[in-house]
């Protein structure tokens, strides 16, 4: 089942399955190093629908909710 990162709590590590959404956003997410199969760690979520802080490899990246929504993961 496809899921977004929303239900995952801080500290969780999830494998990215697909990147789907607005083409510019998807392109830029790939530029930043996102690709299917990569492990994403959820570091923090700001309150009030603020950005998520994620880690891929050795990089911390802040993404808005709608940007995070492009990242589909496989639910367990």
């Amino acid at each position: 089942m496809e899921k977004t990162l929303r239900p995952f709590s801080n500290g969780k590590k999830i494998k990215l399955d697909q990147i789907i959404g607005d083409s510019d956003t998807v392109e830029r997410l790939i530029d930043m190093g996102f690709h299917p199969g990569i492990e994403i760690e959820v570091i923090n979520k700001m309150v009030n629908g603020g950005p998520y802080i994620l880690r891929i490899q050795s990089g911390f990246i802040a993404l808005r909710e709608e940007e995070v929504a492009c990242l589909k993961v496989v639910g367990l």
Partner: protein
Amino acid sequence: MNSQVVALVGSPNSGKTTLFNWLTNRKYKTVNYPGATVDYAVAHIAPQWGSDIEIIDTPGIYSLSPKSEDEEVTYRVLFHSASWGSIQTVVVVVDGTQMARHLTLVSQLLACGFKVVVALTMSDLIRKAGQEIDVQLLSRELACPVVLIDGLLGGGVQDLVKTIDTSIKSFAQIESQSESVPAIKPFFEDQQSHFEFLQKMEALSARVLIDKTLAKDKNQTLLQRTRQVDRWALHPILGLGFFILIMSFLFTAIFFIASPFMDAIDSLFLVLAAAVVSVGTEGSLLSDFVGNGIVSSFGAVLVFVPQIFILFLLLGFLESTGYLARAATLIDKPFSHFGLSGRSFVPIMSGFACAVPAIMATRNISSKRDRFITMMVIPLMTCSARLPVYSLLLAFLLRGRPAWQAGVSLALLYVGGLFVGALVAQFLHRFVKKGKNSFFMMELPLYRRPRLSVVLDSAWTKTLGYVKRAGPPIFIFALLVWVGTTFPNYKADNEQVKLETSYAGQLGRTIEPVFTPMGVDWRVGVSLISAFAAREVFASSLAVIFNVTAEDDTSLQAGLLDSMREAKDARGAPIFTTGSVIGLLIFVMVALQCTSTTAMVIRETGKVSWALIQLIAFNLLAYIMAVGAFRLWS
């Protein structure tokens, strides 16, 4: 023949400008924030490296499809040959700690036909984390030379220069005839092959990183400190609190730290003024000009230079820690209610130093609309040129009161600028139509300990730059205003008569009706108008017009404050009252008295109309608010 041109290209915050500074002995701004450089810079390599090439620094890019104005700049440097001819050799600057994600650019540029040399920066950080890089393996796999760089100490730069030279020579042999620009190839046929490539690069970077710490996760040691700090700095709730705390500290500290240094400079000018008076013969025009024109006008502004230095210093500290990207993240949601984005934060923040580079910094904002709104509000931020004016007026208003009141009032003025900015942004947010969706996507760099020597050096350079920029207008207006207020009736035995009958006095009377509603007379009006040359000139012109002779005062500033206190208008009422001074503070807070800002807005929006609307609207608003404030307080 021109020497060969080599471009430094790479992901944001990978250390391009740091490397550029090493190569060319320049002092361009380096910031621990992705998106610090927004324009290219060209310079000849410094003689000590024993080469003869031109180096270009470029804004950071993530790929060869630009998504914001600063990335466009790099794209144009690479693919549209400009005055320096086409670029054939590119140094791809890769952050060694982020190799896994940033190596793709190397292959993309190779595929475009560039001769590529990879500079792997942050080698010091990698070593500190107990890791090592197999440079030979990496070089073999990427099919181009790789050089390790330590951006802190300049290690590896000589190696890099040699490698570039070799690379240029071999290139000249192979393709001596063709001067063509490398072609832009679509690099990946489909997304799938792109993904596979990314995986390959990840695997490669894992192979070349030799870990000596025996930790399970290779990244653990490297990321440890950043994780610890971010637990608090990016805490979902406390994070915003820390942010506000840090900002408030910044702007109140300017006042308190600078105070003793300001007193020192003030005394220095007092000695200087006394010396001038004692040397000149009583009543000679020259000693009057030097004493009342030059010394007092420069004194009125230079007294505040310590504040400006402290501002640059504290901003520099904050910039080099890596906190700015976090602040941008924290503020992204709140800013979205005003049509701004987290990416507007750094430009707005640099607006506290000066609006001109700040407006340029908006190139980093991908959405045109966000960028436009940000440009419109930046001039409302309290720039360093406003600082002397605020401080002088606050010193007058709060004389004899406890020092903390002035500090708090200064902070309030900063907040006031932000508040008006928020209103303007909100207004534009309602009326400017929505454009293409924007993205935030911010890389949060690893925290680094600021290096005191670097931060001090850069604050000092900027302060000197400030003085050099403000110097000429202060001098010119000191001359103009002194001549204007001294002639034709310079022999008059009464200072009052001399001033009233002077050229400036006559001219001043015609413009006085405009300033009467603000509660001030023509003398302040002339100062306000001269401030359009540079905001600081307001303070220096006041000093000249109110004829500060510091002979019997304890300090030059005290002399100016005394003269202001005694100043009366034609009907004998005091000019500088609580109401009129608050009005003036508000006027300076809102007014756009800066031609360079307007010129920059024209350049960056590409339209004269918006810059003019901004100019007129802000000055009108400033005037109305000042009049309102005066009414309210009297």
